[in-house]
């Protein structure tokens, strides 16, 4: 039981005082703040047969849908097409409307991706996590997520764009926003399970936002197995590569560290061609842990094939890190190595990460408004689309993870 379960508020919902805002308004979901809604009992279109046979829920859905105007296409991913849009009431308030594709291969209705994204984004409200304003379905039963509009591309695009110069203070600033997002997810008992540069989008005001919750899930109860086939390969921690089915926030911490290293390197930190190769790329840097280094490692499912008769490997010394990641400084390197402890039990938690001296040491993280940024976000997205052809490059051949049916 966490700190004070009993202090829980008596859940009189927000806005109870407003007498006109009765139950319907409440149900009008996420963003109906500005509308005034008639008393639910009062005769209205909803209570007469002249409603065209629409259910109350359908009417509410239509009302939500009507609050947005959808425009041109912003981009297309494997699972969705994203459109530019805005609030009907305020055309200056932009949104991104992510229309989930119907997956012909998936015979089980609404895809797990959509389900996970809806489930978790509805609950997560944090400045460094993409905001979900509303959800609606269209007539053809496509689910659309109305998301915060984030026009400045993604973090991977940013380090790849060599017209942009940045330094250690900028890296610290982006990394910190990322770590706050991860901390908030974990405090909310949500595992993201797909942290990587191109799932980190940048807002018009340079705020970094964690997006794409299509693989997320809640923390499992102890003992309940989860799939180990998650997280894009370059960012996948050793325990998952070894087949562990019991894990926690530590898997996201590893990925987060990979992203930070990537920013400092302006290249992928641990790229490889196959899952097997991924493990050897990792051990080239971190060595092969023994049962003493990592108690329990030898009972992981894929330990035997990978490590049982492998020649011992020693971890790289500090000098290797200093030479590869000079932009991070010794404190940054210390943080990174703490986040990349091979044994997940020894890895820093998100909370410990945020308490690390790196953040408060010199140089101070760059203020958001002073961060370097990609010029024309929208044009950049067009390039992203072209880039999508070369998926191998970003390690995105792992689509298989997404298709798994279990949690």
């Amino acid at each position, binding site marked *: 039981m966490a700190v004070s379960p009993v202090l829980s508020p008596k859940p009189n919902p927000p806005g109870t005082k407003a007498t006109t805002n009765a139950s319907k308004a409440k149900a009008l979901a996420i963003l109906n703040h500005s509308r005034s809604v008639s008393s639910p009992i009062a005769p209205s279109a909803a209570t007469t047969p002249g409603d065209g046979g629409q259910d109350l829920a359908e009417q509410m859905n239509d009302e939500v849908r009507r609050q947005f105007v959808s425009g041109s296409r912003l981009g297309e991913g494997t699972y969705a097409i994203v459109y530019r849009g805005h609030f009907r009431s305020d055309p200056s308030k932009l949104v991104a409307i992510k229309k989930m594709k119907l997956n012909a291969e998936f015979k089980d209705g609404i895809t797990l991706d959509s389900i996970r994204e809806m489930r978790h984004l*509805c609950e997560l409200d944090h400045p460094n996590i993409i905001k979900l304003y509303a959800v609606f379905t269209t007539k053809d039963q496509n689910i659309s997520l109305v998301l915060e509009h984030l026009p400045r591309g993604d973090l991977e695009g940013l380090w790849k764009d060599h017209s942009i110069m940045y330094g250690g203070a900028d890296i610290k600033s982006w990394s910190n926003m990322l770590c706050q997002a991860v901390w908030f997810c974990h405090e909310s008992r949500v595992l993201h399970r797909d942290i990587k540069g191109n799932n980190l989008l940048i807002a018009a005001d340079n705020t970094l936002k964690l997006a794409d919750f299509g693989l997320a899930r809640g923390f499992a109860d102890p003992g309940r197995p989860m799939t180990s086939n998650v997280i894009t390969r370059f960012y996948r921690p050793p325990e998952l590569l070894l087949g562990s089915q019991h894990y926690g926030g530590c898997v996201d911490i590893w990925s987060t560290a990979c992203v930070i290293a990537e920013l400092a390197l302006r290249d992928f930190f641990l790229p490889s061609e196959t899952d097997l190769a991924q493990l050897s790329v990792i051990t080239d840097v971190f060595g092969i842990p023994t049962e003493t280094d990592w108690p329990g490692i030898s009972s992981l499912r894929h330990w035997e094939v990978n490590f049982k008769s492998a020649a011992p490997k020693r971890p790289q010394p500090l000098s290797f890190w200093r030479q590869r990641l000079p932009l991070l400084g010794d404190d940054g390197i210390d943080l990174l190595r703490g986040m990349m402890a091979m044994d997940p039990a020894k890895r820093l938690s998100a909370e410990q990460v945020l308490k690390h001296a790196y953040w408060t040491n010199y140089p101070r993280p760059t203020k958001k408004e002073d961060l370097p940024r990609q010029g024309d976000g929208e044009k950049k997205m067009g390039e992203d689309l072209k880039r999508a052809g070369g998926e191998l490059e970003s390690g995105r051949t792992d689509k298989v993870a997404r298709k798994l049916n279990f949690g």
Partner: protein
Amino acid sequence: MKLTEDDLYRRSSQYKHWCFTPSKLALLRQKTNIQASERVKANVARQRAQRAKNLDTTSASDSERANTPGVENGADGASGNGGAVGDKEVDCLTVAEEMRLVDKFCETALELGNFIKVPAEVTATTIQYLRRFYLYNSPMTYEGQNIARATMFIACKTEGWHIPSSDYAAKFANVTQEQVLAPEHLIIQALRFNLEVRHPFRGLKGAHVELGEMVKGTYVPLEWDKRTGTQIQSEILKLPKRAGGAPMNLSESDFRKRLEYDYGVASNILKTSAQLTDTYFHYTPSQIMLAAHLLADEPLTLFLLATKVPPPSPIYSKTVDTIRACAAKLSSHRSYTDSSTSLEDKEARDKKEKAEVLAIIKKLRQCRDPDKMDLVKLNEAHKRDAVHDGELDERKAKRRRLDRENAQKEADEFWGPELPKNGAK
């Protein structure tokens, strides 16, 4: 730098969209009932008028007539006389009757969960989805059978227990994949796309662990609490068995048995009466958890509470009041039994309930929305995007007749001794 359970709960969609004062909840249900009733009446009237028109030209087949609610029993006695058709108002369900049915659907979902062997959380999520769904929909419009099954399928997906729909459908007799999937959008829309349900189960486990530490003497009190772990241990071991009872002095191992027993009782309450009542709409998960624990062991629960909030504080007494009110709600449910309930009482109660529910189901047969009987066809129509309810042409209506009759038959079976084939556990 820690978010408390409270912080988290206050940000949840459950708090923002699914918590109601009792009067708000009643109002919402009334609204849903009014709308559904009017629609049933309008649709039945339209059907009757259509039939009357047909009678003028050709004569309607018997089965066509049987298709209109209220006609089976010759209620409108409309043989051959078009003018008299539709005179009799359909007798719709009241809000109270609807709620009895929803409770029945939820109980069925409980059995369903046991049958297909999903974890308690999945079943509980299913039931809360159902309760939310029926805030905006009436059983007159959408009958529980298909909805409960489809809802559990969705809950399996949201809780990470996805089963392929073909396998899922195969667990039941005469259920197709399409039937499982057809109402999905309907349901998820009524859920306002809020798929996370916050349950009290995890909190109960936490409390159990913490009480264990207190008994062992290893519990570290909060800052304001000046007692040592050992003091707390000796106090807890002296707690009376029931409120107002004489102090005891149990051994550590005997007390551990008491904890296990309490946990079992509370856990059972959370899986049953917490699901089958409106508690989730009115109380937080931790309040529900403490209320269930209070019913299991009052002195111990109050002791636990007093390690969280100092008893002199007004928050303490307010919390106790809230928890007691919640406990009263939990214990008011038929499924709740304590040592004073005899088996005979319980059986009599169940029997009475069953008879009453059957009577409502009989009534429901006369007032179902004729346009919403076959969800598979309705969904296909939706997808084709062409058909509005109320505009189904005659030919389609006829084609749908058989399906509808089948749907009704299945609906009847739903209430029989039932559960699915290969029902052996």
